[in-house]
């Protein structure tokens, strides 16, 4: 087991180097200069331009810049944002919980709705319910997030007034950030109504972000269930005279869930990608919006550091998943021996 962990862990290092190299090179391949963008229409004298570039460390040769960057990263220093002048790590720690909070809610929503729908569609295979459900899920899968979000906002927030339009909590509350998870901070704050306000602000963005995973989960559950329902042991269970509900819930579902769980795991990347748009529309202060803005402003430290941190999180999650597989399945642990 320990050896398995070591081999897995040693793979992280080249991945890490690859990510730093890629983000460093890509953002510099894109034309544009943070100093020029800052000066705007006014323009800036060549001397002042050189001075500011030097202050940002952009005057050195690329290789030296990269070396300095890696040296700082190893020491845990991701640098300061060129725009806000605050440490990249601090900004990430403030914003990342918001993205996690939204992503977790979105995937919960997708699972809670997607699993039962998929099961029902499989059980009632060929019915109108099945056909319409699969049609709807295909629509959900191909839904442009931007349009879908605005549609929901106009219906539920503007016309019906059921949900707030955007933000994380009503502006009437001022919740001191402790964990930066709004639901937790709202509970800790003792402000009456803060928690329900935070919860109501999560509904629409979670639905929007969860729509694509929901469609994927529903379809996957359906096909996986159909496969399992055709197995011999299900026929046996039915022949034994077990109640249909018990056959489906106990015998079929447990086996059908294995591929579904894998698919849910794969949705993490989709969620991060979707979070960028969802956060912009719902004014959700997460890392998606932060990264997009850093590209627009050529804020190199934020982009490099932010992507590195996101990559680190995904790598850690993957490592954990791999380890869990290893624990669950001895064949993986022993590398196929």
């Amino acid at each position: 087991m320990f050896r398995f962990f070591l081999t897995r862990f040693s793979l992280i290092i080249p991945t890490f180097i690859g990510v730093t190299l890629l983000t460093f090179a890509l953002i510099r391949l894109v034309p544009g200069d943070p100093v020029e963008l800052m000066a705007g229409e006014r323009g800036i004298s060549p001397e002042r331009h050189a001075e500011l570039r030097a202050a940002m460390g952009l005057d050195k040769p690329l290789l030296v810049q990269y070396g300095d960057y890696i040296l700082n990263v190893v020491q845990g220093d991701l640098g300061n944002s060129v725009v806000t002048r605050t440490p990249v790590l601090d900004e990430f720690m403030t914003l990342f919980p918001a993205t996690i909070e939204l992503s977790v809610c979105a995937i919960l929503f997708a699972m809670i709705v997607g699993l039962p729908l998929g099961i029902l569609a499989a059980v009632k295979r060929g019915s109108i319910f099945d056909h319409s459900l699969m049609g709807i899920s295909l629509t959900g899968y191909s839904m442009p997030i931007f349009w879908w979000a605005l549609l929901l906002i106009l219906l539920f927030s503007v016309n019906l007034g059921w949900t707030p339009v955007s933000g994380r909590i009503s502006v009437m509350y001022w919740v001191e950030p402790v964990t930066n998870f709004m639901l937790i901070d709202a509970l800790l704050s003792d402000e009456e109504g803060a928690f329900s306000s935070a919860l109501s602000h999560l509904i629409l963005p979670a639905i929007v972000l969860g729509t694509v995973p929901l469609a994927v989960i529903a379809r996957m559950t359906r096909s996986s269930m159909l496969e399992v329902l055709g197995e011999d042991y299900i026929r046996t269970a039915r022949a034994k005279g077990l109640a249909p509900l018990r056959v489906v819930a106990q015998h079929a579902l447990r086996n059908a869930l294995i591929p579904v769980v894998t698919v849910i795991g794969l949705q993490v990347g989709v969620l991060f990608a979707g979070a960028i748009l969802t956060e912009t529309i719902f004014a959700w202060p997460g890392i998606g919006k932060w990264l997009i803005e850093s590209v627009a402003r050529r804020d190199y430290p934020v982009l490099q550091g932010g992507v590195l941190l996101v990559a680190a999180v995904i790598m850690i999650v993957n490592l954990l998943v791999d380890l869990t597989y290893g624990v669950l399945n001895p064949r993986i642990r022993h590398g196929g021996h």
Partner: protein
Amino acid sequence: MHHALRGAAFGLAIAAGFASPLAAKTLVYCSEGSPEGFNPAFFTAGTTFDATSRQVFDKLVQFERGTTKIVPGLAESWSVSEEGLEYTFKLRKGVKFHTSKTFKPTRDFNAQDIIFTFERQWKSDNPYHTVSGGAYEYFNSMDMPKLLKSIEAVDDYTVKITLNEPEAPFLANLAMDFMSVQSAEYADQMAKAGTQTKVDQEPIGTGPFQFVGYQKDAVIRYRANEAYWGGKAPIDTLVFSITPDASVRYAKLKAGECHVMAYPNPADLAAMKTDPTINLMSQEGLNVGYLAFNTEKAPFTDVKVRQALSMAVNRDAIIEAVYQGAGKKAKNPIPPTIWSYNDKVEDTKYDPEAARKLLADAGFPNGFETDLWAMPVQRPYNPNARRMAEMVQADWAKIGVKVKIVSYEWGEYLRRTKDGEHQTMLMGWTGDNGDPDNFLYVLLGCEAVGSANRARFCYQPFNELLIKAKRTPDVAERTKFYEQAQVVFKEQAPWLTVAHSVVYEPIRKEVKNYKIDPFGGHIFYGVDIN
């Protein structure tokens, strides 16, 4: 804490469905982005100024709300020496700085605060000069280090500033955001505690609103300064709800989640006009969108060519299609809201026939080939440069001038046009301080060739008028020079002035006394809600 409690009480009142008449008045502004930071001296973005200098700070002199007129701020009065070199300011007495968790002022505002505000940005030996990364972009780009000779406190309430050369627009510079007056005492206390950067993160000013807190990319909160020297603001709490998407800002405005919103989508304007809950305010902006000819490159060295090409462009069609009506045809390089605007100048008439003749006179009966650069981004003065370029291309084709449209990434575009790589280009400008010098000299003066003067226009008779206007503090005299300069500009035609865009501000009907800021800012002192 006190504030948190009040917020909670208000929240409770709303939740329970009974808003007491004594409930605090909260105004919510849906802003378009996050401030870069909380010290306006570091930054140049309007979004940052909205969140800092325009609510929290005062300046020595300020702009009267809704105008470009300079009125007393922290200076009650001032005098300028005859040769225009010495400015003496009499400071207001009894002005209090804000009190926060980390800072309790022990003295009133005085001359030391003015000295600190200047020296932090100016003197590299000031202990605060490099705090938070230094780099005072506006201070430098307004040429303050070159202008300033000395600053001294004559007594606690008198400050004397001496310049190296007479510069009439200097006074307007002092009203700009980067000259927000900071507390020297706060800086000293933070230096002693070793937490200098707090000065730039938790702003302390003398302004009408006091900073309460910022949740990154989400909310900024302020409360009214009870002790404000101009009287307490009618609202009690001011909240910035940061909402980057314009359609969502509109949805929030409709749903009553905010009272004022920034930058509406042009496509939403028609619906806003008919919305009974919304009052759509509008005003010509302090800006100009223009087409610049590179006057150093042939054939644009020839005035006739520049005039002919100007005459060939149908600007009415552009204003219709590109500005969707939200623009006014520009005839002068300065907008009509700026003093000295010369209304007597005759505008260039759209006349392709005359243009063709003039071009033939200049030796191009069959036209020529050129490039036209178009910005890749939407700017306040030009919502769609690409579209505008295509329309100009079509117009010029009619007189035989073939155009290749060129575009680069924005930073690259700025750099290359500054270096004069273009032949003709689209550009624009939003004024900083309402002084005509800020358009004419900054964009068309000889000294600005290689920076903001992208027409690379250096015409001595024109430049001399601008220098003369800079040297005299007398506004009536300056007006004459600028009026004359606008006539010369029209004859020389270094630009085709296209339009001044109209700024729209949708506010909810219950908002009272809101005024559009000509500088494009959002100012909430004096605003009330029913």
